[in-house]
């Protein structure tokens, strides 16, 4: 019982701080009536997110049909872009980063950046997404050792072959591997293997983003986790190899 009382107090205090944190929106008065720490987040969610992700967080928003890649259904609790092990919940920072940065992609297959929202509102959205997803424990972050300076592209190409990335992404990374025609996501919707030669990486274009995708896998999509299936040096070489396939930065790369 003591613990419950303490929790209630902490919630009330946090709610108060929340209210103070957003004076421009008139939350101060409202929060006194309903000291719900998620109230602000819920309000921002309905304004900014629900049109695609749906009022219930199930990815069935009124604008979802127009998109070529379905918005995430938060209620299933699986997230592609994490710094945590496969099958585990993202960290709060992971969710915050996706909300802030957005997700790269072609029109209809991307998520815009919400960096223009006040930081407190973005953290409020993190709490809302976690509630939809029923996240009760944060996943364990994976190790990302420092990126080596040297780029061993031949090694990377060999790792690409050994890990059989070509099975889906194709031998030249064009997304045309033999399995690319049969891929489905967790909701049995047809999905495609990304073309790796366009410099578009949904999570982000930094080396660390690419490296993380190998280790964490992209939950809910067919992309598995390759944790322990290659050494960190090999995965860095693979990262650099994928970057070298980018036809924008390397015009030679995309010649067939």
């Amino acid at each position, binding site marked *: 019982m003591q613990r419950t009382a303490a929790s209630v107090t902490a919630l009330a205090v946090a709610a108060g701080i929340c209210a103070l944190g957003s004076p421009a929106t008139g939350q101060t008065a409202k929060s006194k009536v309903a000291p719900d720490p998620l109230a602000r987040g819920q309000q921002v969610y309905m304004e900014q997110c629900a049109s695609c992700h749906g009022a219930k967080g199930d990815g069935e928003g009124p604008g979802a049909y127009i998109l070529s890649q379905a918005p995430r259904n938060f209620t299933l*609790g699986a997230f592609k872009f994490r710094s945590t092990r*496969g099958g585990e919940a993202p960290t709060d920072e992971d969710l915050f980063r996706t909300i802030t940065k957005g997700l790269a992609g072609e029109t209809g297959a991307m998520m815009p950046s919400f960096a223009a929202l006040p930081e407190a509102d973005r953290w409020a959205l993190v709490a809302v997404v976690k509630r939809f997803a029923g996240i*009760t424990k944060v996943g364990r972050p994976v190790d990302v050792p420092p990126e080596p300076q040297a780029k061993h592209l031949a090694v990377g190409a060999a790792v690409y072959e*050994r890990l059989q990335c070509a099975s889906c992404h194709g031998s030249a990374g064009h997304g045309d591997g033999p399995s690319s025609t049969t891929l489905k996501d967790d909701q049995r919707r047809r999905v495609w293997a990304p073309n790796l030669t366009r410099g578009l990486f949904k999570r982000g274009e930094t080396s660390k983003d690419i490296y993380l995708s190998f280790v964490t896998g992209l939950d809910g999509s067919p992309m598995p986790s390759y944790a322990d299936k290659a050494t960190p040096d090999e995965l860095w070489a693979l990262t650099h190899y994928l970057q070298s396939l980018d036809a924008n930065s390397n015009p030679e790369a995309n010649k067939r």
Partner: protein
Amino acid sequence: MTTRREFLAMAGHVGAASAITLFAVRVNAQGVEYKATNVVDGGTISGRARLAGKSPDPDRIIIGKDNHVCGEGHATHDAVLVDADGGLANTVVTLKGIAAGRAWPGGEVPSITQEKCAFHPYVQVAPKDAELTIHNKDPLLHNIHAYELIGRARRTLFNIAQPQAGQVDKHKLELRRGNVVEIDCDAHNWMSAWVFISEHPYAVVTDQAGRFELTAIPPGAYELSAWHPVLGTTAVPVKVSRKAKTTADVAFAG
């Protein structure tokens, strides 16, 4: 300003509350938490799962790649296996909603093997939160992709790449709401397997003739339920008396 830490604190409280709820709802269909007890003078139910009607046509999926390992033609790995007498294999027979009975013996080590581009076994039973050991015997990339089935939706439990033969991985089967794990391989879309998660050990998979046996059952009235990945669920009422052997069949209409 609300800081990140404060929001984390809130999220933490929400999390703790949900965790308690989750724990509280770990109950069976009758709303009673399963209680492991020492069963004395328990009874036995044996019988067969049967398919009364016609066997549905399996999905015939073209083996479109890796033919040197996977074989040629069409895969029918989800075929409904019925013997000459109507006995139905790959069916989980369970005492639905049993409130108390013996505990899992312990030491269960559920495992699954990918060989010649098929999962073995196709259907198995595992205790709640058991750790599944995953073997790849094929010299090519498999990615074992496990989902918790929640109604029609699927929630990813894990998705592990095994690009070489001989690789072994382990992952816990931690379900939130459902009791069925669906397993796919995205690299070979015809591959399919199922794990039925049971809180109690009164759940077995039928053999090739559809036979099953459940032992050490506390005397009482139960619902004998059968689940098949293609045919769904069916059930019959059954009574178990002290030390008695009861015979009961469960039949799918097909």
